[in-house]
């Protein structure tokens, strides 16, 4: 059940006949076995599946963190396979945001510095405008008062909210969240997921979340189920 019928103009990301194989010969592992997928713009998509299903590999390929063995990926209308490493890096910097399960923040930088980091890496001058935007996002996420603290001085939920703020600050075409609540208790998880959903509703942000928890997937508009390297189904 693929979504090829949907016009590409509305797709934030698109994968065609995607395969990814690790190792060779006897140790060969097929993480993805021909995946076709479109991520709808302005929607909250959850990629669900048990561990080892290939959902993380799918996300890595969609986000330009890893290269597929075969198949095509395009993000924001741009095919990724022709990019070299530097071009891919800059593309990620400009179009993709990330929130990971853990080790999301650089320990030696403050929360505020972490949020500004993608702008700095792009060599952009920190203007009043960007600072105001960062502050607005931080305030929206309820961490406006904690920007001067180092990650080690923040709670797990606060750390994840800083990570979300950092992902949003560049206004990426698509935001990937890899098990963003994996390390959190249920109450904090709910808060973080709520923030992600609000960024979709209020800011029009496209969000793709990889998770193995059905309760987390329930926040999404669409749920893509992955098993053994194949897409098993898409629910809306």
């Amino acid at each position: 059940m693929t979504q090829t019928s949907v016009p590409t103009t509305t797709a934030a990301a698109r994968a065609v006949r995607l395969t990814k194989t690790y190792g060779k010969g006897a140790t060969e592992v097929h993480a993805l076995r021909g995946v076709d997928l479109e991520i709808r713009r302005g929607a909250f998509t959850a990629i669900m599946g048990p561990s080892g299903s290939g959902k993380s590999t799918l996300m890595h390929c969609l986000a330009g963190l890893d290269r597929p063995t075969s198949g095509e990926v395009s993000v924001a209308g741009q095919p990724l396979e022709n990019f070299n490493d530097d071009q891919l890096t800059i593309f990620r910097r400009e179009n993709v945001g990330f929130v990971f399960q853990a080790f999301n923040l650089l320990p030696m930088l403050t929360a505020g510095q972490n949020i500004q980091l993608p702008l700095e890496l792009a060599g952009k001058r920190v203007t009043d405008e960007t600072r105001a935007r960062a502050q607005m996002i931080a305030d929206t996420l309820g961490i406006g008062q904690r920007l001067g603290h180092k990650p080690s001085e923040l709670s797990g939920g606060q750390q994840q909210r800083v990570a979300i703020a950092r992902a949003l600050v560049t206004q990426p075409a698509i935001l990937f969240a890899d098990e963003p609540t994996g390390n959190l208790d249920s109450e904090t998880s709910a808060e973080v997921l709520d923030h992600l959903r609000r960024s979709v509703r209020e800011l029009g942000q496209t969000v793709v979340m990889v998770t193995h928890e059905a309760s987390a997937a329930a926040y999404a508009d669409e749920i893509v189920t992955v098993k053994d390297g194949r897409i098993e189904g898409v629910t809306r």
Partner: protein
Amino acid sequence: MRTVLFASLRTYARRYAAAVVAVIAAVALIVVTNALTTATKAGLFAGIDAPFQNAVGAVDFPSEEVTEKYTEQGGWPIAASMQSVRSETKLLGQEIMVGAVSTEKRWQWQDLEEGRFPTAAGESVVDANAAKTNEVGIGDTLKVGTGESAVETTVVGLVDAPAMWSSPIYVTLPEMQGWEDQYVQTVMTATTGDEADGWLNTDDYLTELQTQLNKEVNVVAYMVLIFAFIALFVSVLVITNTFSILFAQRMRDFALLRAMGATKRQVLRSVRREALALGLLASLMGLAVGALLGWGIVALVRQLAETAPLGAVSFEWPWLVGAFVLGVLTTLVASWLPTRRLMRLSPLAALRPQEGFDVRGAGMFRIGLGVAVILAGVATIFVAVGWDDAQIGMLIVLLGCAVTFLGVMLLGPVLVPGLVRLAGSALATVAGSPAKLAAANAGRNPKRTAATAASLLVGVTLTTGVLTGMNTIRSATLDEMAAQHPIDLALQAESKPLEDSVLDDAKSVPGVDDAVAVPGAMASVEAGGKPVPVPVVAPPGGDIALRDLSVKPGTMVISPVAASAFVEDSFEASGEKVTLVVGDRSATVTLDVREIDGAPQISAATLRTLTEDPQTYAVWVRAEAGADPEDLAGTLGALAPDAELINGKGQRAWVELQLDVFTWAVIGLLAISVLIALAGIANTLGLSVLERGREHALLRALGLTKRQLRRTLAAEAVLLSAVAALVGTALGVFFAWGGSEILVGDIMPDATFKLPVLQLVGVVVAAGLAGLVSCVAPSKRATKVSPAEGLALD
């Protein structure tokens, strides 16, 4: 636990690279020193008994009377003198050691290679090697010495001689006795001698001589050992740091072992055995590397310089065992502190997520202690500077330097990251976010950063200290040399005036900038009722000499050697009046005795009262800046074969060369410690890269390009090494200032403290560049990991 030990060694072998390199370098340095020592001794001792085949005994450094006594009884002196030697066409050298050869068969101890031994005065033998390089052959006539004591001699044979007793040329004894500065090292006796003269029988004498030589060579070896100990000290810092980082990374493994039932003691023992194994292995490799290097260096030197007195390399057990034990001990001592930290480890640590590492900086106690120790050290240096006795003052300065350095090391965890942050924010304005990230990274584990910097600090402090100290000594010495030898080159007539053509000939010699004829006369001074001939010159004005040499009227500037011809105590003769006589005229002058080159100098006015018709008694030459003084001397010497050639430029160049060779030898030996420290920096960075795999992946995911990541790591290495270099330079200069203040006050009153600015800048730049080189491998490894792989790292 043995399984764990071997598995750990296998797994982490590569991460110990810097520790192994450090131990190998220090151990190898000791072994190489031993190889060079034994080769030198073998070279010196080879054939040391050759002259003594027919001697019953010998007296070392005999007085003139003793030499005479035993020579009359059929003995033979091993005598030598430094003289200038000319062939028919050129000056072969100004200060060539001339030995004595016997006309009697039993004292002809040299090995004849070609021709025959002399049978009478006027014949000589030449060392076969020296003959080859100077293109001298049998039948050539050589002029040895200058002035009236010069002798003409015909080469009748080529000889070879053991290094200990060899000279390039040997003349017969009667000719040698005309020279003032000949000295007798040993007189061999044909019969039993008096113990009162210090006579020993041949066997005892040779044993005694070897013991003496042994001691002298050993003194040099022990000096070199100081540098081995510096290298070992730096190794301790590098190894301690390596273990600290590795153990921090393996904390979870250790905790897991504890959770599975290993006792604290078991874990500790396993880790200490790991260190022991590492020390044993690295020390063994150090022995092998040192042995190979030792052999290689000696073989190379013998290949390049056939006459170098190097014999076969052998290794002495005490040195090898000592080097090995020191290497192992260094490793064990260095691992002691980091392993002790494991005792605090609880089994529960394995079950908690890794919380990072011991990132605490220095506590208040440490900061306070550091500041107090630095203040004490600085105060000690200032006390020493004011000390009266230079030797004790020097010792106090050394103590003050050591204490100050200790204080800086204590304060390191605050000082180094602080300075790195400062330098980083300066760099960030040019290099952007990589520099900012790098500065933040350097500040995240203050103790590790400080320890890494400390290892480089040792080498840089010592290097800049030596450079600065030597620069002060050097400029003072060179000033003194310039004052003593203000004329580049001079031809000085000894008995009759120079021919008029000499001046023009000299001017046309390539490399001669300008030359001037110096007017003078042959005067005489009455001493002990007899007139003593003294050539005098009146220095001309102009800029031919480095300084104005004009003499006050009524004064005669004279060297102690020249003055000794007519005064009792030439060194105390300043102020005495003597009367110079030329024909029927005379002038009374006041003596000013000091070390000058050439004939006594008087004023032009005094010369005019002595003679109406002054003649050229000297030609002074100013050489072009780049001209080789020895080449010039060779050509100029041939212009006036009877004149004495004075080579002031050559003497200055020689002293300069000596100072430079000494300085660079010390720097070269210190470089070993600096290299060890750089290996340490590379290792720290490499291990940090492993630790930060996930962070780098995150940064890459967020849009840091490979090049930016490389730049971040490069900036971290450069910041660290540059800060260490700057702090080290500041310390080195301060220490050198303390040392030279004492020298200035006592030993070298003319010395002023001088900064070798260019060299110091060179050290800092070199350290920065070396830091850049040290990050090549780690940053290659860091950029090899793709972001997706990095994120999957634990």
